[in-house]
């Protein structure tokens, strides 16, 4: 019969069932008493009939609680009906001197079983108001004369006051039983809770918002090597590392005012007399059912996270070290770049003046040849330096790419123009193989230019006079690809797999003219990878080589800090040549 909402909580269940049971007994007693009355005194007067009707009201109230589950309202209803009945009966039986008045005592007694001070107060107020109203009516002398009963006066007291006393006694007995039950439930609950806490292995603490500990579970002994009582009050707070105290208090504050919080802080272990020894703990904190205006107490679990925390610290140190090394490397690269380019400027520039015979003709053929060789070697060295720097930056993640949409056709045409002179000199034709609807490339423009130039200069270097170089591009799935194919000497199968690995030099098969560091392709491969793409090489000895760079539709820029603007200088001074 108890309402759904109260069935699962043993305490609420007790309150509800007690209420319903007492009202049912009262109501049923009335129904049973009616035939007895009829047998003894015959048909009741109108007033008595009204009393009987009124006495069945508890049945309705019990029904109300059973249907709605509203205990407080049911109690107030009950208090009102009982008080009303007592006043009504007293009006006809002697007013302020009526033998039924003791029944008013039952009103707060009933309410005591609601388990709420507010309801007891309200019920008491109703009973007092009823009594005062009755006294008022009596004093105003507007009450009817006391009904004459065909029984002695003492029997009125017996039938009027005695049941009230017995009823109040029964309520008190029930109340005391419920108190015992509540205590029992609480103890059981406490024991169960403690067992759960112990099983979880965490330390359970209840504390106030200011960090004062009100309870701490015994497991604390294991965690902090101190007894539970030393942490009581300010004991815990005083052991929290000074630097971590704000964090600790923030977590408590957060749990008290907003939501569950967690914090990690260091707590000093062992006796205070010993050398300080801190361990990291994690605290999860939540408010414990506060009742509105007063700051709620908090319950928190403490867990040892020392090992994890120390690992993290080590990792952080290692990361910081790596970052510092990376920055140092970047700075080193920038300096290298400057220091190498400055003397190269003189070497390339002066040898160019000589070969260009700016100050008059070099009479000796050998001198002209040497000047040319110095210039050529200077340019070669510059390319190697550029490749090494680029490769280092790609490897260290310092090469930043900025993808943008651009017209691949223009870029390819531009690159072909840049190597045209060189190709012509070597007796080579450069052809393009571009679709009518050339897909727009979405990539770092400069990186693409560098990749194309590296591939083209390789093709020029490894082709035989009279050969053909084809540069092409096409849509490739959702992305785009470009390729450079030559009819040159080809690459031995054994070397194919190793190509593109930085700092790997191919063993043989090339005459001195083709000497290179192998960095050119590594740079292409690295740049393609930075775009999330890839480089593929197909080659056949004596037939030629085709290198394809595939770029995905959206290139993911790799993280990096800076890069050399080497492309501009290279484009201005000639071509990147390296095998």
């Amino acid at each position, binding site marked *: 019969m108890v309402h759904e909402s109260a069935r699962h909580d043993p305490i609420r269940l007790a309150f509800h069932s007690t209420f319903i049971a007492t009202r049912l007994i009262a109501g049923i007693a009335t129904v049973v008493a009616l035939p007895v009355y009829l047998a003894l005194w015959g048909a009741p007067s109108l007033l008595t009939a009204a009393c009987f009707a009124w006495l069945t009201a508890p049945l309705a109230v019990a029904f109300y609680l059973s249907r709605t589950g509203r205990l407080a309202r049911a109690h107030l209803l009950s208090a009102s009906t009982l008080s009303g009945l007592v006043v009504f009966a007293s009006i006809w039986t002697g007013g302020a001197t009526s033998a039924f008045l003791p029944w008013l005592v039952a009103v707060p007694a009933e309410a005591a079983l609601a388990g709420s001070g507010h309801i007891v107060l309200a019920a008491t107020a109703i009973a007092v108001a009823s009594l005062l109203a009755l006294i008022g009516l009596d004093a105003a002398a507007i009450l009817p004369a006391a009904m004459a009963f065909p029984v002695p006066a003492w029997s009125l007291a017996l039938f009027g006051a005695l049941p009230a006393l017995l009823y109040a006694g029964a309520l008190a007995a029930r109340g005391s039983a419920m108190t015992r039950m509540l205590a029992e439930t609480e103890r059981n609950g406490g024991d169960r809770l403690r067992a759960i806490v112990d099983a979880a292995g965490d330390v359970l603490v209840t504390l106030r918002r200011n960090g004062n500990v009100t309870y701490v579970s015994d497991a604390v002994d294991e965690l902090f090597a101190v007894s539970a009582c030393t942490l009581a009050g300010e004991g815990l707070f005083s052991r929290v590392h000074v630097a971590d105290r704000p964090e600790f208090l923030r977590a408590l504050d957060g749990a008290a005012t907003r939501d569950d919080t967690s914090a990690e802080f260091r707590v000093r272990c062992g006796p205070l007399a010993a050398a300080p020894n801190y361990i990291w703990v994690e605290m999860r904190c939540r408010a414990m059912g506060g009742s509105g205006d007063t700051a709620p107490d908090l319950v928190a679990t403490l867990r040892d996270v020392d090992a994890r925390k120390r690992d993290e610290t080590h990792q952080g140190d290692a990361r910081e070290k790596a970052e510092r090394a990376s920055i140092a490397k970047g700075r080193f690269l*920038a300096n290298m*770049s*400057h220091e190498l*380019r*400055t*003397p*190269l*400027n*003189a*070497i*390339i*520039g*002066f040898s*160019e*003046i000589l070969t*260009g015979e*700016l*100050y008059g003709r070099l009479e000796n053929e050998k001198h002209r040849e040497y000047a040319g060789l110095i210039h050529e070697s*200077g340019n070669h060295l*510059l390319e190697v330096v550029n490749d090494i720097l680029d490769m280092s930056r790609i490897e260290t993640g310092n090469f*930043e790419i900025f993808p943008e949409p651009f017209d691949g056709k223009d870029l390819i045409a531009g690159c072909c123009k840049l190597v045209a002179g060189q190709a012509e000199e070597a007796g080579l034709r450069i052809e393009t193989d571009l679709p009518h609807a050339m897909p727009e490339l979405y990539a770092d423009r400069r990186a693409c230019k560098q990749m194309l130039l590296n591939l083209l200069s390789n093709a020029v270097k490894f082709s035989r006079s009279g050969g053909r170089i084809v540069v092409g591009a096409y849509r490739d799935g959702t992305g785009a690809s470009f390729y450079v194919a030559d009819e040159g000497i080809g690459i031995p199968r054994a070397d194919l797999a190793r190509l593109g690995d930085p700092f790997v030099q191919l063993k043989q098969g090339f005459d001195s003219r083709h000497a290179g560091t192998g960095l050119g392709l590594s740079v292409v491969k690295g740049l393609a990878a930075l775009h999330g793409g890839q480089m593929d090489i197909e080659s056949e000895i004596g037939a030629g080589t085709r290198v394809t760079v595939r770029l995905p539709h959206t290139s993911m820029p790799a993280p990096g800090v*800076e*890069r*050399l*603007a*080497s492309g*501009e*200088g290279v484009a*201005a*001074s*000639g071509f990147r040549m390296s095998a």
Partner: protein
Amino acid sequence: MAKKILIVEDNELNMKLFNDLLVANGYETIQTRQGTEAMKLAREHKPDLILMDIQLPEVSGLDVTRWIKEDDELHTIPVIAVTAFAMKGDEERIRKGGCEAYISKPISVAKFIETVKHYLGDGQGNAV
């Protein structure tokens, strides 16, 4: 009369290279290794063009360029930055700093002369 070019460059060899190239092309040069001296020389000689190394020992070539561009008397003189310090964003930074052009080291002789001639308004230069 030969056009005058002020070269601000701290590296001796590069100074010589630029000087010889410019002289070979019929220009007159004024040289300084110090950015701090550049202003004084510019006021004194009123050069037609300034070649500015960006990495100078005392003050940055960018600072010197800014001084020139803020000077009522000198701000019309074109400044070409020449630098080996060619990191990402340098070109933008240098152009923003007021330089008319930017040449990265190592230079290409042909490109170098072409750029200089362009900013002097010499189609053919005044070669010897």
